[in-house]
């Protein structure tokens, strides 16, 4: 991959607290990258550094072969869409969209044409004379996007673009954002705390935690093969079960919090790498509940069932485990027995096996595929 944007060794700290540790990333031309992470993970800090609104304490930013680390925000040609849209309330829609053109000395017919074009792209042409205050949240966001793309930016940055929209609108805007990206071909970086947004929109997702990028991958790879226990526990709703495991006394057995388990098939291959205490990540949708004991199953007691419309979420407490007994979440489309019954959990795949010491995923690469 030839990098269009290179983030090299970028760090930022405020006094004694570090907001970003040494970020290294390459983004290809035309790529849609999502910065995903919980609040405080540093994703917005990184976005602001890219926009030039924040000075990185250290590191280099190279855009299209040119070092822009020291370039002021107003010379970067980077389109930025704010979470609160930040439309200028004293200007109408056309003036807002034309602001960046005006700053570049583009006026008159050429400016009008480009304003029309930008408004057309977001299907808001007929709203030109309205004031931002007269528009709905979704419309304001479209205008904010039109304003950012009117300058033909070299990079489009979106800060939590969907977080201020209601659930119904969010869905449709998500699709529109993807279409917009395909139409304009703009290299886009989006900050979000919503994994669904990141997974559905982005070509690649950079998962961030406490100021570090812990994994950059295609959505499927990030979901199916999380590089760390944090990634496994962050992605998915509900996220992956993380069970404390250790090698069992007998060969081929695994101790889950004191419960002896004998895995079979590809699950057995996946956990064969186990040498010491680790955490086993099992996604709720890869687990099956069975009524009778079968090889490779883990026994437990059905503690609670949540009906989620179309499917159920079973909470299974492992029997005979050290207190507090781990609870495994299982997604099931079938009807479930009464709570309190003995059930067996049969894993179908291993999402990850994280060594307690190194934190690395020690399961062989093929084992996670399904």
């Amino acid at each position: 991959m030839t990098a269009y944007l290179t983030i090299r060794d970028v760090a930022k700290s405020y006094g004694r607290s570090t907001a970003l540790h040494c970020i290294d990333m390459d983004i290809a031309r035309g790529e849609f990258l999502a910065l995903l992470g919980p609040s405080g993970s540093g994703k917005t800090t990184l976005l602001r550094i890219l926009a030039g609104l924040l000075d990185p304490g250290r590191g280099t930013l190279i855009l299209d072969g040119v070092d822009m680390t020291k370039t002021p925000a107003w010379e970067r040609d980077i389109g930025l869409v704010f979470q609160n849209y930040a439309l200028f309330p004293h200007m109408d829609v056309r003036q807002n969209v034309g602001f960046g053109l005006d700053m570049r000395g583009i006026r008159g017919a050429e400016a009008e044409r480009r304003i029309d074009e930008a408004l057309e792209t977001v299907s808001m042409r007929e709203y030109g004379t309205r004031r931002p205050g007269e528009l709905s949240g979704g419309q304001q966001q479209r205008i904010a996007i039109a304003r950012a793309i009117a300058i033909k930016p070299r990079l489009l940055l979106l800060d939590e673009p969907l977080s201020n929209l209601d659930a119904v609108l969010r869905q449709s805007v998500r699709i529109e954002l993807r279409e917009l990206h395909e139409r304009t071909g703009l290299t886009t970086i989006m900050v979000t705390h919503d994994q669904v947004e990141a997974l559905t929109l982005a070509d690649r997702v950079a998962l961030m935690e406490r100021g570090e990028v812990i994994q950059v991958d295609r959505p499927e790879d990030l979901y199916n093969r999380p590089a760390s226990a944090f990634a496994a526990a962050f992605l998915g709703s509900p996220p992956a079960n993380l069970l404390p495991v250790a090698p069992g006394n007998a060969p081929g057995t695994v101790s889950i919090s004191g419960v002896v388990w004998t895995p079979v098939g590809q699950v057995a291959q996946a956990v064969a790498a186990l040498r010491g205490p680790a955490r086993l990540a099992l996604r709720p949708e890869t687990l099956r509940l069975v009524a009778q004991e079968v090889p490779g199953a883990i026994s437990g007691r059905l503690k609670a069932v949540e009906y989620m419309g179309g499917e159920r979420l079973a909470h299974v407490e492992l029997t005979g485990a050290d207190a507090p007994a781990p609870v495994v979440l299982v997604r099931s489309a079938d009807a479930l027995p009464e709570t309190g019954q003995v059930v067996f959990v049969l894993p179908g795949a291993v999402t990850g096996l994280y060594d307690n010491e190194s934190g690395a995923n020690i399961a062989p690469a093929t084992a996670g595929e399904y």
Partner: protein
Amino acid sequence: MIGRGPAHLLVAPGLALVAFVFLAPFLLLVAMSFWSQPEGSLLVDTTLTFKNYIRIFSDAYYLRGLGRTLWLSVATVALALVLGFPVAFWIVRRAGRLRRFVTALMLLPMVCGALLPTLGLVNLLSPLGIINGTLKTMGLIDRAIPLLGTQIGILIGLVQAFLPLMVLPLVAVLDRLPPSFEEAAMSLGARPAQVWQRVVLPLAAPGVLAGAVLVFCAALTSFVTPQILGQGKIATFATMTWQQASLVLDWPFASALAMVMLGLMAGLGGLLAVLRRANWAQT
């Protein structure tokens, strides 16, 4: 539900007080400005006449006083704006935990009355005061710069006294201005000066206007500051009115002077109302 009668009654004492100590004297003031006082007499002639007003607008002394008062007020507004805007911006964006403290500090001179701070300024500005003393010690000047009894001295006093009236409305308006407006403008290619000119100032305009009106009215009617810092050498409308009322004892003429000040403020208020309506129509 409690009847409305008793609640109305609770307002009555306040209303009575306002009617008695404000409204009635005010009406008397309006009426008195059209009365006259024959020369050399302390008796008031109650036949209605424009004599006082004609005298104000035909006597060069009063016209100059009016001009001086207006210029001092406008200059105070301008200086307060120039000095107050950065302070307000700092309070909103940078003060952080100091904000409450700084705001309290700003309010302090306003609530402790005009006299004490003004007397403090006398100490600062007098020929043997701190400013002149420091400059002399540093060898920058040989003779004291006259500050007391000059318009500059009064201007310093007025700005000092009424700066909070400019800062507080500006703080209120800047508080509602998210930093993302400025950041958005910058990302669109606006240099810092353009961000101010195109985004911050237009959006802060209502606060600027409110602050300007407050400072203008306060400076126009200020009495203590020009009286003490002017050392009786600089006549403003307020000091002239006081002279007429307390020294010359020509109450009808003093009333007319007061009415002119009031008229100026009412005119300003009317102008603003028109401006605001025009602005409303635009949005």
